[in-house]
């Protein structure tokens, strides 16, 4: 007995208190920290969004002066993209990839610690830039020069934060790729991997490809600002449009970096609650790979109004429209998975169906935006704001909520309050649409994005949108409450709380032990 105790104690040995988290190399601890960091940033970004919507509640300048308003929109974008959505997916990968491929931990455990602890530094840099002379960066989250050459110290802090975030992402991706390629349980061939693992493998390759491009881009901006270079300044032989090409060569794959893991999550959840295998597994894998490859050759569709030659516009239009094909395949496959299943509608399933439903609306407006003449009309208007919030909020964010509700019993060992969780879904669903659906029409009617004040014809729909946004923001506090309540206690969760689940993590006890799969399971 003593021996058993000893072995057990050895297994769970780790520093307690704060040092457990600072020193940890455990993929579960690091995953948890990623997720909490992401939630904290989600609250900060959400606070900025509430500021934006409060200012836009009615015409006139009420709360935010124009310059501060621009800082709010800029930092809202940067914090949500780099601070909330991306770390949340990395956190999910940290928790789930080793569990789903039957590995004991991530391949580079110490680097894992380092890639997490870079994030709070970058987050602090971004937030504290509000308090330096000149204020935070105000050139939009895309920080196009020459405007971004005009800002003060806040812009430099933003550039440095992006460097740090990029380094963190690259390390995280290399870690994920190495884990997936080298540490799968015996018998788990690539084409037997769960879809979540597949989509993350492809995402990680995309990250390794484009993050250095972003780093180069911000470095050129930095040297233009301080060291006399003129990469983006026509007066010295440079070109402001060059920046946009480099930025979007990163920026468009980045869009898919934020949605491919979401596809993976939904491809896990829908079969589980349909009690039926995923329809078209291999076509899902090929579709994901095609989307990733195509995403690298469509960047200039963000730039249809810079004045490209017709041939350039046509190439990027055709390539962009082509992405609708593999994306469509995915939606059809999810529908076919549900078809003739035996469905139940627990919270993760609700979020997944909500995801498919609203993501398709975002996909439709994406195809509309791909058509050059229409895009020229809607570019830089609220139509585009509506489009990318449909794919990033009801797309990426809904899938993250779904994933948390799916795996929370495995992480905590408790079932959450399903009534409240379902309420969280329905309130999110309704308020999201109230906030963003109207924005399509604001854009079509001619309201530009990034303006602190607008003409009177836009007043009523802006008010509706603001009300929806406030509701959506408040609803997320309910999510926090549900999660905390679940961590602190609740009905004991079974090892496999979902009847139709098939992946490896459900063979472990709930909560998952601190160290798992020290002896790899064998896949037949």
């Amino acid at each position, binding site marked *: 007995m003593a021996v058993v105790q000893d072995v057990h104690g050895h297994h769970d040995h780790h520093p307690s208190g704060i040092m457990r988290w600072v020193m940890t190399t455990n993929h579960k601890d690091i995953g948890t920290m990623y997720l909490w960091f992401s939630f904290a940033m989600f609250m900060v970004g959400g606070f900025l969004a509430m500021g934006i919507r409060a200012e836009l509640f009615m015409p*006139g300048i009420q709360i935010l002066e124009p310059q501060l308003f621009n800082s709010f929109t800029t930092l809202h974008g940067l914090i949500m993209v780099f601070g909330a959505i991306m770390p949340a997916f990395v956190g999910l990968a940290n928790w789930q990839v080793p569990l789903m491929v039957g590995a004991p931990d991530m391949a580079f455990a110490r680097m894992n610690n380092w890639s997490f602890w870079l994030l709070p530094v970058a987050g602090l840099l971004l937030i504290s830039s509000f308090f330096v002379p000149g204020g935070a960066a105000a050139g939009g989250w895309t920080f*196009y020069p020459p405007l971004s050459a005009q800002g003060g110290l806040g812009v430099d802090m933003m550039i440095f934060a992006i460097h740090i975030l990029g380094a963190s992402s690259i390390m995280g991706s290399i870690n994920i790729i190495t884990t997936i390629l080298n540490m799968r349980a015996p018998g788990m061939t690539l084409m037997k991997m769960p879809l979540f693992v597949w989509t993350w493998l492809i995402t990680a390759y995309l990250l390794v490809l484009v993050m250095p491009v972003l780093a180069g881009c911000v470095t050129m901006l930095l040297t233009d600002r301080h060291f006399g270079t003129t990469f983006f300044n026509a007066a010295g032989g440079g070109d402001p449009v060059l920046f946009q090409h480099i930025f979007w060569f990163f920026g468009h794959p980045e869009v898919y970096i934020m949605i491919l893991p979401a596809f993976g999550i939904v491809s896990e959840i829908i079969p589980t609650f349909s009690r039926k295998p995923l329809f078209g597994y291999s076509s899902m894998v090929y579709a994901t790979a095609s989307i990733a490859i195509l995403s690298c050759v469509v960047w200039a569709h963000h730039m249809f109004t810079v004045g490209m030659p017709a041939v350039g*516009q046509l190439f990027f239009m055709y390539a962009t*429209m082509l992405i609708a094909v593999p994306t469509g*395949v995915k939606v059809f496959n999810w529908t076919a998975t549900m078809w003739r299943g035996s469905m139940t*509608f627990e919270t993760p399933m609700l979020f997944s169906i909500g995801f498919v439903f609203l993501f*398709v609306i975002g996909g*439709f407006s994406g195809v509309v935006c791909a058509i050059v003449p229409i895009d020229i009309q809607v570019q830089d208007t609220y139509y585009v704001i509506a489009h990318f919030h449909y794919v990033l909020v009801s797309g990426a964010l809904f899938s993250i909520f779904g994933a948390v509700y799916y795996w929370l019993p495995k992480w905590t060992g408790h079932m959450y309050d399903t009534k409240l969780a379902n309420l969280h879904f329905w309130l999110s669903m309704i308020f999201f649409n109230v906030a963003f659906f109207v924005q399509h029409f604001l854009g079509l009617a001619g309201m530009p994005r990034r303006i602190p004040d607008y003409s009177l014809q836009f007043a009523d729909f802006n008010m509706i949108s603001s009300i929806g946004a406030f509701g959506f923001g408040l609803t997320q506090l309910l999510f926090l409450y549900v999660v905390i309540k679940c961590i602190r206690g609740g009905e004991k969760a079974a090892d496999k709380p979902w009847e139709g689940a098939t992946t490896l993590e459900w063979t472990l006890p709930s909560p998952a032990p601190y160290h798992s799969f020290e002896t790899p399971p064998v896949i037949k």
Partner: protein
Amino acid sequence: MSSKSVMALLGSAILAFYSSMAFSSKYFHPEPQSVIAQETYDQHITALWICLAIFIVVFGAMFYSILKHRKSVGHKAANFHHSTVVEIIWTAIPLLILIAMAFPATRTVVAMKDTSQPDITIKATGYQWMWGYDYLQGEGEGISFFSKLSTPVAQLEGKETKGENYLLEVDNNVVVPVGKKIRVITTANDVLHAWWVPAFGVKQDAIPGFIRDLWFTANKPGIFRGQCVELCGKDHGYMPIVVEVMEADKYAQWVAEKKKASAAVMNTAAVGN
């Protein structure tokens, strides 16, 4: 009825309500005033119908399945998991639909780019935060002025009632004759700006150090409003574009007045010297 379905119904009712409200009101494209704007409008309507059809087919199937293939009504799960034929079909059909959508768009793109042989050429220069206009060629050549927001600050601060064209009015309108091909050359003095008049279906970034161009031919007289649509700093929201389209004779009159005014300015300057 369960609370869930009530909420789902409520949600779809709200969506339907918005959409119908928007389509029948000011919340859609402004009425197209040029050939390009009309083609753009038509392509958008076609795209919306196609989206609606796909939406009904896909979600019709999905919601039928959600209703019928649920465990609570005792439906047993089937076990199929792929079908090559079906997968080829639903790869091929979207491809064909996309080709059909790309075809008219391609023609419009080529037409939009044809800025050759304009009747009048105007240079629009973006400044932080106003527009400068120079009539470079055609009737009115030599006219040059700045165009600034004319909404009083008191309206911005809420000390006065906001006027009908709040934030969409300027001191000097860009004036063009009806039915003539107008080429607008865009550039900027400091940062990026973008020149947009929705009714004409034109939008072009103005890039410091570079020249870009666009063209439009207005179908009928009137006043058409747009805004700068590329973030250009603090007062980005305060640099509207107002284009006034006039009949040929009125335009000639406007040109004559502008010329007289600038001649007067020149004379005063000469006398002063």
